């Protein structure tokens, strides 16, 4: 052996070969199918932009797009409002207690979205538990229409996506150097000032990561808006499903998909430019 350093595991193993199975799986069954449907959006059967023009010219479709963005924004906003204080407390507590509380954040995350959406149907329906409770307490005399509204969609989606906000926030907050806070306090800043001028700015990468993650996941949500929303609350995923399954309009569905993907990519690219994508996966290490 000439140079043991060079002859180590690291360089002598052609590590690249280990990637072949995953590369094959993803290229053949993920990249190629997606590229194929994108070509469907442009060739129908000759080159055309009619599907894209339709999205931006027909008011109904523009509304769906706008509604999707609005709902995603609202959901991310509420997740942040609810998630920030929780992550803050979790990052402060001794590890033993944090571990227990963290399980309460992780259980819903591991529970099927379908099950969680069903629970909201049971809770919010006309004959649902909430209405029964309100009638029983005589708060209302008629059952309220809670289910099949956009409020129900947001309520359900916030519950489902909240862990994706708490986890990246927590992992960033956990890494904040506590001595900086003490330094700030010892220099005469009160707790409020220390939080606003030191802690909050340091937690911003977590805020950005959580917000972007929730926003992107919310954009493509299907199950929850489909089951909790009314006829007026169609989001882009439901429109895509409908175009394929009911109308067999592949070209238009593909165009909608490409628009959805482009929005996702633009957001991710901006996020990567300013914060870094690795912050997202930090939040995704889910246990």
């Amino acid at each position, binding site marked *: 052996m000439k140079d043991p350093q060079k002859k*180590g*595991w*690291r360089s002598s193993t*052609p*590590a*690249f*070969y*280990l*990637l072949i*199975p*995953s*590369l094959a*799986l*993803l290229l053949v*069954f*993920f990249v190629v*199918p*997606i590229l*194929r*449907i994108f070509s*469907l959006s442009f060739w129908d059967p000759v080159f055309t932009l009619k599907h894209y023009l339709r999205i931006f010219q027909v008011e109904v479709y523009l509304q769906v797009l706008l509604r999707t963005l609005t709902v995603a924004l609202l959901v991310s906003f509420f997740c942040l409002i609810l*998630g920030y*204080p*929780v992550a*803050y*407390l979790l990052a402060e507590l001794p590890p033993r207690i944090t571990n227990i*509380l963290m*399980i309460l954040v*992780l*259980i*819903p995350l*591991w*529970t*099927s979205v*379908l*099950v969680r959406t069903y*629970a909201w149907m*049971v809770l919010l329906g006309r*004959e*649902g*538990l909430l209405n029964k409770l309100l009638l029983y307490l005589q708060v209302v005399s008629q059952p309220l229409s809670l289910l099949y509204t956009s409020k129900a969609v947001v309520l359900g989606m916030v*519950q489902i996506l*909240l862990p994706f906000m708490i986890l990246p926030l927590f992992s960033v907050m956990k890494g904040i150097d506590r001595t900086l806070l003490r330094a700030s306090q010892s220099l005469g800043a009160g707790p409020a000032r220390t939080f606003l001028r030191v802690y909050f700015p340091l937690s911003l990468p977590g805020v950005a990561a959580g917000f972007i993650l929730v926003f992107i996941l919310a954009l*493509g949500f*299907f199950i929850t808006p489909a*089951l909790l929303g009314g006829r007026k609350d169609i989001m882009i*995923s439901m429109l*895509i*499903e409908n175009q*394929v*399954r009911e109308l067999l309009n592949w070209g238009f*569905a*593909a165009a909608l*998909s490409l628009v959805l993907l482009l929005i*996702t990519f633009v957001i991710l690219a901006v996020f990567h430019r300013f914060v870094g994508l690795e912050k997202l*996966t930090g939040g*995704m*290490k*889910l*246990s």
Partner: protein
Amino acid sequence: MKGAKGLSWGRLLLWFFTVMVLLYLAIPLLVVLPISFSSSSYLEFPPRSFSFQWYEKYFFDPSWTAATLFSFQLGLVTMLVASLIGTLAAFGVTRGRFRGKSWFQVLILSPMIIPVIVISIATYSFFAKLKLIESFLGLVIGHSVVAVPFVFINVSAALMGFDVTLEKAASSLGANRMRTFLRVTFPLIRPGILTGALFAFIISFDELIITMFISGTRHTLPVRMWMDLWLEIDPTIAAVSSFLIILSMAALLSAEWIRRQAQRKYDTAVKTEEGERWSSTTA
């Protein structure tokens, strides 16, 4: 200390807020579990008396049991395939040096970020061409695409926190590469692989949207549930949901247990090492 009282009030408020948010997160469990034991045929809460009738309906209805068994089969096979592929990829990325590594990472993680509906219709159209609709193989492939990233993340994390000198030590002591892998590397990253595998299983077991497009008439449990949810909601779905909740909790608690075992092992290993170093320097 001045302001200590104000601080503790703030603290109390923070705790109160956190408990409320955690309750909100727990709502599905708090609603679904009690209802599944209700004795009446329509939904009521709190249930007046207990019964197992919805579980009976679930476990003795062939269409529900067939769907459940099918989901288990699919979940287990997907788990094996995704764990193998994801683990190899994680090794390649953490150990290898090649160009385009970050691109590969983006590629392998993208099924987590790309909206499932896009993946679904793309897979549907592609599988229709390949005659893979309604086939077990097609479902395994479809589920693996979305399950692999979770294995990849967990195993990569395990490999990242891994001391490569241990492998060097083993090989310098004469162990060949296979032996080094089996006796040193694998035991150290096993927790990461197991957690990734649990994830892969749950992802596959709960997958609805891709499955809905490509499963044809063979129903998995989520697809069967989905169809029922559009017809009428009777508490049978609550029983099925409770079953799913318990399955997820079992998976999560196992993952948590594996993580703590590994942490404890690591801590004692570090302690003994420090102890030995200490005794050897004093000797």
